[in-house]
Structures are given as structure tokens and as C-alpha cells.
């Protein structure tokens, strides 16, 4: 377990270092690389203030120390486009992303598991074959295309859902009304994202179930007279789930790519959308901040999935304990 934690910390350090080094490896002064176009509009005082605050004219080592120090204080730089500290800009967007990613993750995982189990259990039968075809088709449609289609049909044509944004502005709603408004806005992006991830989870679960379906313990469970549903979900799925969870965890990167496209399509005010805006307006501090946060999110997500699959599968727990014993 500790070994795993160390792995993750190491990964985090590498990411931070990269995030620090990349702009500074570009030709020209670091300040030009970091602030780009915004420099043109800056007064000399602002420029010297920046130079001093971020130590941009000092040797690389000192710059790194300052950079890390700032990070720990939550200082990610200043965004000239938004005219606010990057940290503040990002923390406004983060909850939306977490809400969207979380919802779609929850639904796509849960539905993917159930769908995969039900299809795999009936391997080769009609339901299974239909499911496979559906999943393949769905898998072939890119996320943003799917988003646009849903947007056009459910949002634009049927007008069941709002077209964009995370909540209706200027209404000043409170409590339930606001929550309902947020959910209405969440629906289409979350649906899109769920549909994007569903086929992968379905396929993962199905193949993992096929791997355990013929195991003797499933027969044992049936032999002792357990109901078919119990055999399926208590015995077969328990055995088949851990690898699925691990794989879902490993696909966190894909989840956030998905979030990015969907947020752009639906103008959903999360990190992806923010990133897109910042990129359009050459607001590099924000771009870097977003990248940093997303990679950290991916890492955290991987870590959580690891922990969860260890919890699900005592064999992994044993491994982890043994590793710990050895290190």
C-alpha cells in the first residue's frame, strides 16, 4: 500500500517538474513563454512585479523552489484574460467538472456492470448478441458527435433540456429550485459522457464475467441451491469485478478527455471548458493550471480505483501487504 502511495507521489513530482520545465525550455525569456501575448498589455511595473514574485530572472533551481512554494500556497499564477489569480479561476470551474465526471462515472460504471453481467451470462444468445452490436456501434461514435446529436435532438428540437451552461444565470434561485436547475443542465452532458464510457465498461465487465462464469465455484454456488440472481451477483460478479474496477481506474485519462470534449460542446463551465477558453485566448497560466489539475485528478482517480479494487479482492490486499513487508 505504502509502495503504491510512493509510486503516486513520485508520479506527482514528475508531473509538477514537467509542468515547471516545459515553458522554461522554450526559447526566449521564461516570462515571455509563460505569459505570452498578455505581456504586450503589461506595464513595466507589472512586469517587474511578476519577475520578482515568481523569481523569473533567477537561476532555474531557485525558480523551482519558488514555484513549489507558490504551489503549496495555492498560487498558480495570474490570469490576465480573467483578470484573477489562476487558482481562483480554476476553483470556480472544478466543482462543475467533478459533478459531471462523477455523475457520468457512477452511471456508466453501474450500468456497464449490470449490462455486461446480463449479456455475458447469456453468452451467445439473442440479448448478448444485440448488446454486443449496440456497444460496438456506440463505441464507434466519437464523444463530441454524440454530444452534438443529443444536443440537437433533445435540447434544440424537443427543447427538453437547456442547450448550454451549468445553471441558468441571474435567476438567483435558492435550494431545491437551484438544484433542479443544475440537474437539468447536467442531464445532457452527463448522458453524453455516460454513453461514451458505457460500451467500454460493458465490454470489460462482459469479458471478465465470461472468464469466471465457468469457474467451479459458480457451479458450487448453484449446486447449493442459491437463486440464480444470487449466484450471478454475489458469487460470479464478486469474482469478476476487481479487474474491471482496476481497468476503469486506469481509464481515468480517457474519462477526462471525454469531459473536455463534452464540456466544450455543451459550454459546461468546468475545467475543460475553461481550458478551451484559455487556450483560445493564449492565457497560458490558466492553461498550465488546468493541465496540472487534470493530471492530478487523473492520478487521484487511479489511486482511488486501486484502493477500491484492493478492498474488493482480498488477493490484491495480500499482495499489497506482502509488498509492504518487503519494502
Amino acid at each position: 500500500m505504502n509502495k503504491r502511495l510512493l509510486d503516486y507521489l513520485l508520479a506527482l513530482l514528475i508531473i509538477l517538474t514537467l509542468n515547471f520545465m516545459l515553458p522554461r525550455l522554450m526559447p526566449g525569456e521564461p516570462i515571455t513563454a509563460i505569459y505570452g501575448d498578455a505581456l504586450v498589455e503589461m506595464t513595466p511595473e507589472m512586469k517587474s512585479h511578476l519577475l520578482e514574485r515568481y523569481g523569473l530572472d533567477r537561476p532555474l533551481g531557485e525558480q523551482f523552489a519558488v514555484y513549489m512554494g507558490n504551489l503549496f500556497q495555492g498560487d498558480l499564477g495570474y490570469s490576465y484574460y480573467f483578470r484573477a489569480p489562476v487558482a481562483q479561476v480554476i476553483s470556480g470551474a472544478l466543482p462543475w467538472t467533478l459533478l459531471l465526471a462523477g455523475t457520468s462515472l457512477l452511471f456508466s460504471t453501474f450500468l456497464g456492470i449490470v449490462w455486461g453481467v446480463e449479456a455475458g451470462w447469456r453468452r451467445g444468445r439473442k440479448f448478448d448478441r444485440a448488446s454486443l452490436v449496440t456497444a460496438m456501434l456506440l463505441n464507434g461514435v466519437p464523444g463530441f458527435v454524440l454530444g452534438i446529436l443529443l444536443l440537437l435532438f433533445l435540447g434544440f428540437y424537443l427543447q427538453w433540456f437547456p442547450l448550454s451552461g451549468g445553471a441558468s444565470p441571474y435567476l438567483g434561485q435558492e435550494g431545491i429550485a437551484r438544484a433542479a436547475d443544475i440537474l437539468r443542465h447536467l442531464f445532457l452532458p452527463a448522458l453524453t459522457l455516460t454513453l461514451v464510457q458505457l460500451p467500454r465498461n460493458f465490454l470489460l465487465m462482459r469479458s471478465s464475467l465470461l472468464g469466471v462464469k465457468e469457474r467451479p465455484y459458480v457451479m458450487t454456488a448453484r449446486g447449493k441451491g442459491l437463486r440464480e440472481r444470487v449466484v450471478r451477483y454475489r458469487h460470479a460478479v464478486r469474482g469478476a469485478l476487481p479487474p474491471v474496477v482496476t481497468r476503469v481506474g486506469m481509464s481515468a485519462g480517457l474519462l477526462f478527455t471525454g469531459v473536455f470534449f463534452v464540456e466544450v460542446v455543451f459550454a459546461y463551465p468546468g475545467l475543460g471548458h475553461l481550458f478551451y477558453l484559455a487556450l483560445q485566448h493564449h492565457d497560458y497560466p490558466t492553461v498550465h493550471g488546468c493541465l496540472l489539475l487534470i493530471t492530478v485528478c487523473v492520478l487521484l482517480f487511479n489511486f482511488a480505483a486501486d484502493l477500491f479494487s484492493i478492498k474488493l479482492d482480498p488477493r490484491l490486499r495480500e499482495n499489497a501487504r506482502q509488498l509492504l513487508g518487503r519494502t
Partner: protein
Amino acid sequence: MLEINDLTVKYQTPRGALPVLEGINLTARKGEVLGIVGESGSGKTSLALAITGLSEGRLEGSVQFQGEELLGKSREEWERLRGSTLSIVMQQAGEMLTPVLPLIEQVMEPFLKKHPRQKDEAFRRASAMLHKVGLEEHSFYRYPYTLSGGEVQRALLAMALIAEPELLILDEPVSSLDALSKADILTLLEELTGECTVLVISHDLSTIARLADRAAVLYCGSVLETGPTASLLQAPRHPYTRALVRSYPSLYGLKELQGIRGEFPSLGERPGGCPFHTRCTQALEICAQQRPGTVEKEGGRNLACHRGGVVELLRGSGLKQRYALKGKGKDPYLEAVRGIDISLDEGEVYALVGESGSGKSTLGRMLAGVDRPYAGTVSFQGQGFFQLSPAETKKAKRDLQMLFQNSGEALSHRMTVHELVAEPLFIQEVGDPQTRREAVRRALRWVYLPDDEHFLNEYPHHLSGGELQRVALARALVLEPKVLIADEPSASLDASVQAKVIKLLLQLQNERGFALILITHDLALAARAGDRVGVMHEGKIVEEGPAADILRRPLHPYTQSLLGAAPSIGGANLAATGMPSPAEPAVAAAEGPNGKPACSFSPDCAHSCEECFRYVPPLVRVGFQKVACYRYA
């Protein structure tokens, strides 16, 4: 009560529906333990799965438990039956328990299914049951992947028993275990099964012998023989049962291992007719064409064989032989054989033991039709040998071959190997020179001798003792006899060659399927090689019975003394050491003080009493043995 009637199970395969079980009829009374034995692939597990509704195959016929028809039940009905009325412990095949759920939770499940709310009670019962099957508390919450095979087997048993079933099915309950755990679990099973009807399945005869009251022998999806376990295994009547018992290693400890000749047919090529006919030594034409029906025999035995089980090939009744003695006083005759009844079954190995001079060879020569008995009859395949017409006698002699003592040395040194081996063919006028040569070659190959021209034209004085003995064996087998009487086939050879010749002889017996009378003075060898052993003493058989019984529990004081004298049962030569060897060949029967005939062993017997000197004790049946001694009369 479990009643299986005409059960057929067919598996759907890409090559079509393949039957794995055909026309199974079995019953097990309440509280009875019914054993099913059979080789791997004979359909044992398929039967277990069919009875518990877990079979993937197509089922026909009927399976009734307590009058309720089980076939054709719906999934829900099966779910209700399993884990309450009937329980199954499946054959170990990898992960038997869900690896990620704690053991005790899985053991509780069957009880919780019946009583969903009583979690505490379930826990209490599960722990009690786990204790009973010998698992310690610290194992209760372990995950099954950390348990050993034996622990898993115990847990499975606990899981099956917690449901308090009325029908318990155990599929290979101990096969995956080491000897110690196996003994443990068998003891446990004996204790725990109690009231319920049990179907125990195993390829392991000792498990069946230990647990089952009655047993059924399954071969290629058919039941060939059923009966009370003890009599079935000790006195098998079906050729297959006998072969199975013979090929089983640990049941009789010291037995020389004999496989069953031929291969177990694969599922796709099940033989028609009697499923065993491709390997049976006594198959007739009808065996390949028609399935034998099951016939009830005495002693609760049932048999499916066109010939009513293993048939008797050779029988000698009241055989006596005497040789004239020259120049001796009042009794001019030596009575070498003094009244012997003996029989030999198809494909059987009968080992005849006795010290030299006890009359073994004389008996062998009479049985082979070489010498005419002074009294008594020999019948071969039901016909009196010495009453046959000359033509019939000639034909019978083809099927009855004798390998004489020292026959290797006795081979004519003026004939080539080819002439020697071909001679019986010549005498019997079999084939033309071409086919005879082929037959000679084949016979030489059987005994692992070269069959090239060079060797065929070799003369005996160029061959070693072992080679000569094998040439003699080839000569005896070239006519493919049904019976071979081998008189001390290895006695004149040195020890290592001896072992080889015996091994070869037994191997050939198994492959060619002839019946063998092996005459030897070595009781250890006799017990290892023979299915049955007859012990001869001064012209009479004093004890006879299954080799294992004779070895384990010799009844006659003479047999006991032979065994006691055996230096090592591993097969060393008995004659070399302290076997009581008669200084003189017996000239006259032992006589009591009053001049009446007495037990021939009485002069040497430690148990002799007055009675023993009064009569000659008759051969009486004790269990599966026969013994001639007053102590058992």
C-alpha cells in the same frame, strides 16, 4: 429412496449429440450408501450432475427421489430442492469456493437461503459444522484461496451437510487429497452421513470399499455390474470389474499392477453392443452387436454380460495321479496328486504354489491335457478333454499350451529359432509357410526378441538363458492359446532375468488376454502375480483364494509357515532361504498313529491336535477363501 430408471444423458457437441450415459438403472434405499466406480470419463460426474439438475446435457428416463420425479423440474423447483432435500459435493476442479468471500459466509448460505432472517443461527450452525469437519476457528474468516485442498474439501462437505439433506451426492470426495487427509475425511464421512441416502462417486476402489454398502461399476456410460461392495470387489464377476480390481494399486497393497488391456474408448467412439467388447478377453460375436441386458444373480448382484460374467475355461475334478515306483516295498506307487478340484476362469491368472515335490507340475500336465489323470476329469470349455475325438483333441490342444519347466533348456539344439517357434503351427497344420513365418515373427515380437532373418536362423546354443526362455514362450504363444500353463517359467534363470521373464509373461497375459496358470514355489511371487492363489501340499490343495486375502490373512498353517518364511515379500526367491523344504519326496500319505490317513501337514503343524490325525480335512469355504484344515471345519 432414490430410483434411477433408464436414464440417458446426451451432450450436444459440434459432432452431434453424444450419449455419455445410456440406460442407467440404479436404486439406493433410504440410508444406504451407494458407490459408483469407474474410470475417468466413464460418466460418473455426468450422473451426479443429472441427479442434481445441473447437467448441461439432454436427459431422458426418470430419476425419482422419495417418489418425486426430478427430471424436468423447473429452475425454481431445483433451487428449492438443492441445498435442502439434496446436496452435492462436487469433484474438485480448481477454485471450488468463491475466492473473494470469507469461508464461513459461504458455508452459511444454504441455511440462510432457507431461513433468511436467522443470521446468528446460521453462523452458529456453520461454525459447529466447520468444527465437526475438522476446521479450526481461525480458518472461518479466511478467504478460500488461502485454504489447502483438504481444507476446501472439508468446507465443501460442511456446506453440503449444513442443509441437512436427505440425499447427499459426493463426487470424488477424497481424490485430490494426500493419504492422511484422505483417511481423515473418510472417517468423517462414515460418521457424518448418518440417516441420509448417499451416492458416493469415485474412481478409487478403496474409497468405495470403505464407504459404500453397495456399488455399481460404470463403464462408458453403462452400469456393468452392481452388488454389495465387499462381494463385488472381492469376487468380481463381470470381466470389466475384474480387470478394474486387478488394475487397482492400493486396494491389495502388494499386487503386481496390471492395466486393463486396450484403451478406454473416447466419447465419440463408444463401441456398440457391450461397451466393453473391444477389451474383453471372452467377447463373442454377439457382444459387438447387441447390448447385454442386466440380469439379476444371487447375492444381490446384477450383471450385464452376454456370457453371464467371467466364464470358466478349464476345470479339473477329482484329479489323481500316481507314478509307479520301482523296487520299493509294500506301496509300488507314488501318489503325486491325491484328488484335486481346480478351475480356471477366462483371462484369469491362477498362481499355484507349493514346495517342490508337492505335485504342481503333475497337476499342470494333466490340466494341459499332456498326461491322462489316473482318476478324475479335465474339462475345457465345458467338454471333457479326454472324451474328445482325435480331431477335437487336436483343436483343443491349440488353445491349451504348456510352457514346461526348463523349457528353454529343453529346446532342441538341432533346430533353428524359426523351426522351433513354427513347430506348433506345423503340428496343428495352421497356415502356409508364408503366414507361418509371419506368425513366428509376430510371436517373437511379442516376447521382445528380434524378428530378422539372422535371428530366425539362429541355433539355440547361441542364445542366452533368458533368450531361450523367451523363444520357448514365443513357441507356446504362437498359436494364440486361450490357456497357458507356465511351469516355473523363470526358476532356472538368474534373478534379474527371472524378474523380466515374469513381467513379460504377465504383460503378455494382459495384452493377449489368455488365462494363465503360473506354477511357482515362490508364494510372494504368486501373490503378486495371481488373481487367485492355490497352495498345494503333498498332492492336495490345502488353501485357495483371492491373492490379497491369502497374503493378508493366510488361514492354513502351511500357508502361514510359507509366508512367515518369506524373506521379503518384495519378491526375493523363497526357495533360496528357509522355506521348509522336504528332504524326501513324500512317498506315502501322512498317517495317523492308527494307520488312518491324516492331514498331510500334521507332522509339521504347530496347531495339530488329535483330530488332525484322524481324517483328511476337506476343503471348506471361509469367506472368499477355501481351506483344508480342521481348525476351520
